[in-house]
C-alpha cells in the first residue's frame, strides 16, 4: 500500500489519564466461530489508536462491539463508566457518545446533506431545528463542503460523502470516534481530503480508534498501533517502535506485506 503524504499535526496532542473505553477479557463468537479471543484494551481520553491486521482478523468486529453493533458474549466493555449490557438504555446512552464512520459512508440517500447531519441531534438530543442546522453548517464548514448542504448524498463524490459522514457523527458531539477503514473505498486523491479532516480532529483532542491500513496516518497521528490476528491482539506499541522494531513474527510478516505493495 502506498503511503499518502499527511499534513503534519501542528499542535501537541495530549493524552490524559481518564479512561474512556475499557475492554476486559472480551470474547465473541459467530455461531461456532471464535472471532474475538480475550481482548483486553484500555483507551484513555485523547488517545489516537490505529488498529491493523490481516483481513478477517476481527478488527471491525472489535470496534463494532464498542457501540454494540455487535454483541460480545463474554467479558466486559465499559465506555465512559457505563457498561454495555443487554440494557437498551445503556446501549442508547453509549451510542450517543460514540461516533462511528464506516467504510461505505452509509449516508441516508433519501435525505439532503443537511438533513443527514441534523437527523440525530433533532431526534436523539432533542435539539431545536434551527440550532441543529447551525451546528451542522459549522461542521460542514469544518470538513470544507458547506456549499453541498442542499444536495443529496448520491450527487457527491466518495471523498465528499465520507467527509459528510464524519460531520454527521460529529453533530452528536461524541467523546470517542470509531473509524472502520474510512478511506479504503476511496480513490487516492480523495483519501487525502478525508485523512486531513481526521488529522484536524486528532489535533482538537478527539479520542479516536481507527481501523486503517494508511500507515502514513498511523505514523503521524497515532499514539498507539495495535496489531490483530485471528481475533487476538498480538502486539501493541507506539508507532515508531511498532514500525521500526516489530517484536512478533506475524507482525513482521504483515508489515513486510503491506509496505512492499
Amino acid at each position, binding site marked *: 500500500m502506498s503511503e499518502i503524504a499527511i499534513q503534519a499535526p501542528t499542535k501537541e496532542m495530549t493524552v490524559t489519564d481518564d479512561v474512556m473505553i475499557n475492554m476486559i477479557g472480551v470474547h465473541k463468537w459467530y455461531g461456532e466461530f471464535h472471532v474475538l479471543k480475550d481482548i483486553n484494551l484500555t483507551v484513555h481520553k485523547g488517545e489516537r489508536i490505529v488498529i491493523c491486521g490481516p483481513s478477517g482478523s476481527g478488527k471491525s468486529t472489535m470496534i463494532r462491539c464498542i457501540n454494540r453493533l455487535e454483541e460480545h458474549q463474554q467479558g466486559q466493555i465499559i465506555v465512559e463508566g457505563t457498561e454495555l449490557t443487554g440494557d437498551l438504555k445503556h446501549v442508547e446512552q453509549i451510542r450517543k457518545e460514540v461516533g462511528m464512520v464506516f467504510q461505505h459512508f452509509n449516508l441516508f*440517500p433519501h435525505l439532503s446533506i443537511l438533513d443527514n447531519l441534523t437527523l440525530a441531534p433533532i431526534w436523539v438530543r432533542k435539539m431545536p431545528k434551527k440550532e441543529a442546522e447551525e451546528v451542522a453548517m459549522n461542521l460542514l464548514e469544518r470538513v470544507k463542503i458547506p456549499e453541498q448542504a442542499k444536495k443529496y448524498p448520491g450527487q457527491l463524490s466518495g471523498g465528499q460523502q465520507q467527509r459528510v459522514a464524519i460531520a454527521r457523527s460529529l453533530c452528536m458531539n461524541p467523546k470517542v470516534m470509531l473509524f472502520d477503514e474510512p478511506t479504503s473505498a476511496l480513490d487516492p486523491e480523495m483519501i487525502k481530503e478525508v485523512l486531513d479532516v481526521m488529522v484536524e480532529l486528532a489535533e482538537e483532542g478527539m479520542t479516536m480508534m481507527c481501523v486503517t491500513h494508511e500507515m502514513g496516518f498511523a505514523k503521524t497521528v497515532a499514539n498507539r498501533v495495535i496489531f490483530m490476528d485471528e481475533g487476538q491482539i498480538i502486539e501493541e506499541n507506539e508507532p515508531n517502535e511498532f514500525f521500526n522494531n516489530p517484536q512478533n513474527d506475524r507482525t513482521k510478516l504483515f508489515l513486510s506485506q503491506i509496505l512492499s505493495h
Partner: protein
Amino acid sequence: MSDQKPTHKLGEHPDWAPPSITIGAVGWVRANMLSSPLNIFLTLLCGYLIYLSVPPVVQWAFLDADWFGTNRDDCSREGACWIYIGFWFKQIMYGRYPDTEVWRINFAYALLVVAAIPLFVPSFRWKGWLSVFLLIGYPIIAFYLFVGGSFGMEHVETPLWGGLFLTLVISVLGIVASLPIGIVLALGRRSDMPVVKAICIGFIEFWRGIPLITVLFMSSVMFPLFLPEGMHFDKLIRALIGVMLFSAAYMAEVVRGGLQAIPKGQTEAAEALGLSYWKTMNLVIMPQALKLVIPGIVNTFIGLFKDTTLVLIIGLFDLLGMIQLVGTNPDWLGFHIEGYVFAAFVFWCFCFSMSRYSQHLEKKLHTGH
C-alpha cells in the same frame, strides 16, 4: 465529409443541431416502428388490427349512441344507449341511499377533495396537520355523515348503502388500513423476537392462503355463529375487516420486499447515531423502503379496489353489483353491455389515476442514487 471545409478554428467547434433523422417525430418513428424488417411487419400488423377494431367501437359508443332522453323508448338501438346509465345514475352512484340524504355523501366527497388539494400545493406549510385531519378527523366526520342518527340527521342503515359510494367506502378504508397494518406485519416478520415473528408469519400466511371470496363468506356466514345470541354485528363492518386484513397480508409482503432491499449499513449508521429502533425505522428505513416499493403498493391498492366487487356475493351491492341489479329490471332488459362498459370505464378511471399518481410520486421522491 472530407470535402467539407472546417468553418471554425481548432478547439472552437460551435454547437450543431443533431441530424434531423434522429430526432423529433421522424426520428421516433424510425427508431421505434421501422428499425428492422420484423419491426416494420409488426407495425403494419398492428395498424391493420387497429383499423379493424377501433372504428366499430367508436361507431357504437359515440357516433350511433343515444345520449338524450328519459326512458327506453328514446333508445334507437343502433348504438349504445347511454340514457340507460343516466336513468339509473342515482342507484349506480349511491345504491338505495335515501334521495333526501344523498347530499351527505356529496358533502363528504367535496370535503375530501377540498381538504386534499392543499397537499398538492408545494408551498403549503401545514401538510402534517392536514394529513392527521385526513387520517383521523375526516373518517370520523364521514362516519357521522354516512351513518347519521345524530345532529338531527336521519339514520341510514348500511344495507341501503351501495353503488360507487359503497365501492369507495370499502376500498378507501381497505387501502388506508392495509398500509399501516402491512408495515407492522412486515417489521414483525423481520423481528428478532421469535414469538412476534411467528405470529406475523402465521397471520400473513393464513390470509394469503385463502381466496378473498372465502374470507367474505366466512365473515358473513360463519362469523355470526360464534357470536353470542342476539348480538348484532353489521355485515358491512365484517366485510370491511375481512378486506382490510386480507390486503394487509399482501401489503406486508410488498413492504418486506422493500425492507430487504435496504442495505444493512443504513440501520447500522442510524443506530450508531443513537436512534432507537422505532426512530431508525420511521426516519431512515421505511421512507427508503416504501419509496422503492411504490409500484408494488399501488399494484396492491389497484387489486384491492377491483376486488371489492366480490362483496356482491355476500349481498352488498357495490358499483358493479348495482349495475347488475338494475340490469334485471323488467323495463330495462337488454342493456347489459352498456352497464358493463360503464362499470369498466369508472373502474379504469380510478385505477389509471392511482397509477399516474404513483408515477408522479416516484419522480418526485427520486433523489439521484
